[in-house]
């Protein structure tokens, strides 16, 4: 393998897309320690590792941290902190030490047992308190999330150039309602929908913009918060085509450029 062949494969390797002979050949090449391809690989891995930063964080379920805490508590009960082991053993010293310890243990047994009971009660109370604190921290996080979302809406409504589109449920889903807010000043948009039921496995809500020449542009999957609210947002496409309407559909699989494949549940016109 030469340098150019390696360069071509490094991207696939970084993305876990390389298999079989090509993968082994590239690994052999990289193992030769040439700095340039190894540096390229590191850069490419670092690039891909940043991809998730583009995702919108979704607030975890409120009790998830409590479950994590309980799991850590259980771990600590099963395997308490390890003590450093001695570097070597000297048998006679150990024997005499054990003998002395045994004598002491006999006398101390009762006292130790009482102390242990106290410690167990305190540990139990501590674990309970930690769980409560974790629960409160999660509630705080949820409220902060709600505050952030509210602030987003307020920020959009304060826009100097706000475009609003009201979306109404179609005859199949008359209870659905939504609003598209486009901040033409900051070039961001966000759709908010309500009364959205959790879609069946493998299905999702897709938000669409419909151009004046009747082309449908898939704008992204709506993220639900579990209470019927859902939203999706993005930066305003550049160039912005002439828009006629916005719509929400439920899709199975890929959102195709040819337009919604599933039923359209909400629609609204640009005025």
């Amino acid at each position, binding site marked *: 393998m030469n340098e150019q062949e390696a360069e071509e494969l490094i*991207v*696939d390797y*970084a*993305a*876990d*897309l390389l*298999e079989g002979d090509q993968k082994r050949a590239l690994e052999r090449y990289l193992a030769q320690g040439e700095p340039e391809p190894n540096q390229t690989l590191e850069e*490419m891995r670092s*690039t*891909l*590792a*940043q*991809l*998730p*930063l*583009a*995702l*919108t*964080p*979704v*607030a*975890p*379920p409120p009790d*998830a*941290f409590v*479950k*994590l*805490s309980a799991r*850590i508590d259980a*771990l600590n009960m099963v395997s308490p902190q390890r003590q450093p082991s001695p570097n070597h053993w000297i048998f006679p010293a150990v024997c005499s030490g054990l003998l002395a310890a045994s004598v002491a243990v006999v006398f101390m047994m009762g006292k130790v047992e009482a102390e242990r009971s106290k410690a167990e009660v305190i540990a139990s109370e501590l674990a309970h308190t*930690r769980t409560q604190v974790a629960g409160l*921290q999660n509630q705080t*996080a949820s409220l*902060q*999330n709600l*505050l*952030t979302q509210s*602030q*987003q809406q*307020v920020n959009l409504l304060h826009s100097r150039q706000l475009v609003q589109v009201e979306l109404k449920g179609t005859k199949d889903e008359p209870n659905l309602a939504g609003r598209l807010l486009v901040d033409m000043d900051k070039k*961001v948009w*966000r759709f908010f929908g309500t009364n959205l039921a959790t879609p069946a*496995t*493998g*299905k*999702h809500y*897709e938000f669409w913009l419909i151009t004046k020449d009747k082309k449908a542009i898939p*704008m*992204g*999957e709506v993220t639900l918060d579990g209470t019927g609210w859902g*939203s*999706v*947002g*993005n*930066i305003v496409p550049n160039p912005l085509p002439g828009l006629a309407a916005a719509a929400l559909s439920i*899709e*199975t*699989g*890929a*959102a195709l450029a040819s337009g919604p494949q599933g039923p359209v549940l909400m629609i609204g016109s640009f005025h």
Partner: protein
Amino acid sequence: MDYAARFPTLWELKALPDSGPQKPTDIELMSAIARQDRSALSELWTRHGGLVFSLALKVVQNRQTAEDLLIDVFFELWQRAERYDPARGSPVTYIATLARSRAIDRRRGMGNKLTQSLDVTGPAADLTSDNSKTSPYVHVAQDEEAMRVRRAVESLQVEQRQAIELAYYRGMSHSEIAASLQKPLGTVKTHIRQGCIRLRQLLRNSHLSDDKAG
């Protein structure tokens, strides 16, 4: 008395400097977690739990499984925080890489049933700038980093972005991506390679422009 004048509005709060004690950096939190500091774990969860959950949801497409993954990832961080090496990247990319790896493993373990119900990711992501679950005026720098990556991803051609996201978030092979996008295999390979190279360039340039601005 004009009470409204005495209190900052939510809008103004965003611009206020953080007057509280200095917040530990993510690297400091990782060090503290390695020393089994629970409050550090809680703080790291508050900062990045939403990102890990979002990533897990995107990969496994199932809320319960995503929650399990979220807990698994932070449990693993708790047990093995000392493995994190700051020289190899920021804690958040380390956490995201760990989460992605575990989620892809779980996804593959779920078998073909899930693979049949894939959707191609739409536009790169949810891109409004202040959508973090964390306090909007505490983690401005974190939001800026997210926005920088979002803009770079958004700058890719749609075909490049879709192919990269299917590889990264779904763990699909070239041929699976080609089938899902109904594109020739060679085209998909080209989209992924050129897209990744372009993404690297965009992120590098944005770093450089940030440095100049800073």
